[in-house]
């Protein structure tokens, strides 16, 4: 044990490890907050779809050799998020199919582009990194960290400011609209926030595992807690803890960061599931 702590504090000397922890905490905090809304609105899969879109955009950005690929990835993902979340609310099935279509489409085109216009010798390594975020969180540059801090700050601020509005729209969009809430504007806001979080989270766990960050903490919290507020707080706490645990284990044991974080989320979900069952008497 003392060796482990020593090893950890040795690693913490490095700025890239501190960056990883800062980004990890912020991203997991943001994604879990919106995750509650997405899960309850039956939009769990949107996160997955959008992350594939972000992957496709990333491929285009690297083909175009952009210096800062964020400027392409973020707008493209936001545009698709608005398209998916703000249309087709009257026809759930169509929306579902649209997500599936956009999701695999972007994945395929992204991989295709990366292959045709490959700039590096190790394409499958690059693709694997993007999809599973195996090392990208440990290679963050200082400006990426700043960008992440600013964007998460905006996301957190809007979430707290509009918390009650988000609740009322999530619980009953029709009631909210009928009683004068501008639901179109808030759905738009939610779509933009979700897209931003997805793009940020891609750095942390990679494109394929993003929806785990969105979905697992919310689902774990919902097993046990009974009010929207407590579910939100619990989801945020669980998510941040899992990311910290995941990053630390990944550093100490040399495992891939993204998958380790998700594994931690799964373990916690199992735990909360059991607590929920015990409480409700097997219900």
């Amino acid at each position, binding site marked *: 044990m003392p060796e482990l702590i020593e090893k950890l504090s040795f690693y913490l000397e490095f700025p890239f490890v501190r960056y990883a922890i800062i980004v990890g905490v912020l991203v997991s905090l943001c994604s879990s907050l919106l995750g509650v809304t997405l899960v*309850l609105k039956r939009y769990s899969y949107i996160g997955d779809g959008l992350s594939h879109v972000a992957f496709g955009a990333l491929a285009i950005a690297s083909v175009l050799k952009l210096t800062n690929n964020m400027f392409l990835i973020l707008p493209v993902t936001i545009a698709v998020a608005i398209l998916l979340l703000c249309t087709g609310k009257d026809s759930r099935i169509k929306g579902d199919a649209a997500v599936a279509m956009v999701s695999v489409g972007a994945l395929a085109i992204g991989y295709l582009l990366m292959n045709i216009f490959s700039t590096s010798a190790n394409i499958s390594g690059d693709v694997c990194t993007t999809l599973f975020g195996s090392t990208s969180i440990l290679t963050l540059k200082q400006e990426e960290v700043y960008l992440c801090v600013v964007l998460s700050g905006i996301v957190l601020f809007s979430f707290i400011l509009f918390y*009650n509005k988000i609740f009322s729209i999530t*619980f009953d969009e029709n*009631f909210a*609209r009928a*009683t*004068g809430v501008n639901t179109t504007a808030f759905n738009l806001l939610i779509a933009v926030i979700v897209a931003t979080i997805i793009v940020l989270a891609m750095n942390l766990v990679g494109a394929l595992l993003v929806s785990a960050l969105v979905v697992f903490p919310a689902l774990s919290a919902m097993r046990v807690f*009974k*009010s929207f507020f407590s579910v939100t707080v619990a989801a945020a706490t669980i998510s941040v803890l899992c990311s910290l645990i995941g990053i630390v284990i990944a550093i100490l044991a040399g495992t891939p960061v993204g998958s380790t974080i998700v594994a931690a989320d799964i373990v916690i979900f199992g735990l909360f599931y059991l607590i929920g069952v015990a409480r409700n008497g097997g219900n």
Partner: protein
Amino acid sequence: MNELIPLITCRQLTLGYGNKDIVRDLDYDVNVGDYLCIIGRNGSGKTTFLRGLSGLLSPKSGDIELCEGLKRSEIGYLPQMTLVQRDFPASVEEIVLSAFQGKHRLLPFYGRARRERAMECMALTRTESLRKSCFRELSGGQKQRVLLARALCAAERLLLLDEPVTGLDPESSETMYRAFKDLHKKGMTIVMVTHDVDAALDNATRVMNFDQISVKGK
């Protein structure tokens, strides 16, 4: 008889989904002080009309106009329960308080007046003892009463009710109807879609029958 002041006017109103018209060329006014009951068979267009009045469904043609400076934020609405809500982790209090979202712009918290108003509405629907309970663990009738408390909170001038007593026991429905009657006496305009024709005729000042789309005054 007082002069009739329209609160919502419908002109040549056609409502429907896709290619199907459900309400066609309807001219109708909801007047200030009405207690209007809308009755009719399933699928006759009652709920569609109510969705039109509440602004959830845009007219395919014709107009629905809010008059007398009526704002959406002064309308209370009791929709039929949706699938999402059945397993929603939220406390009763959170749900009732969410009624005020249309009224208050950007504050992230609720003031004392709002909280007191919410308590009153919970008392009216006999849900105050459930205040801290989890919505998804309530019975169907209790859920209905919570959603009604929320509608009452939002309603300042107009209350739109879609089958408000569905799933309630006779005693609760009785309380409900009495609450509506009191509100109506205090000047609330009420529009109610219902299957409960007897109770409707007891309380209503007007009845709209979608089986004939003939409209009777009283």
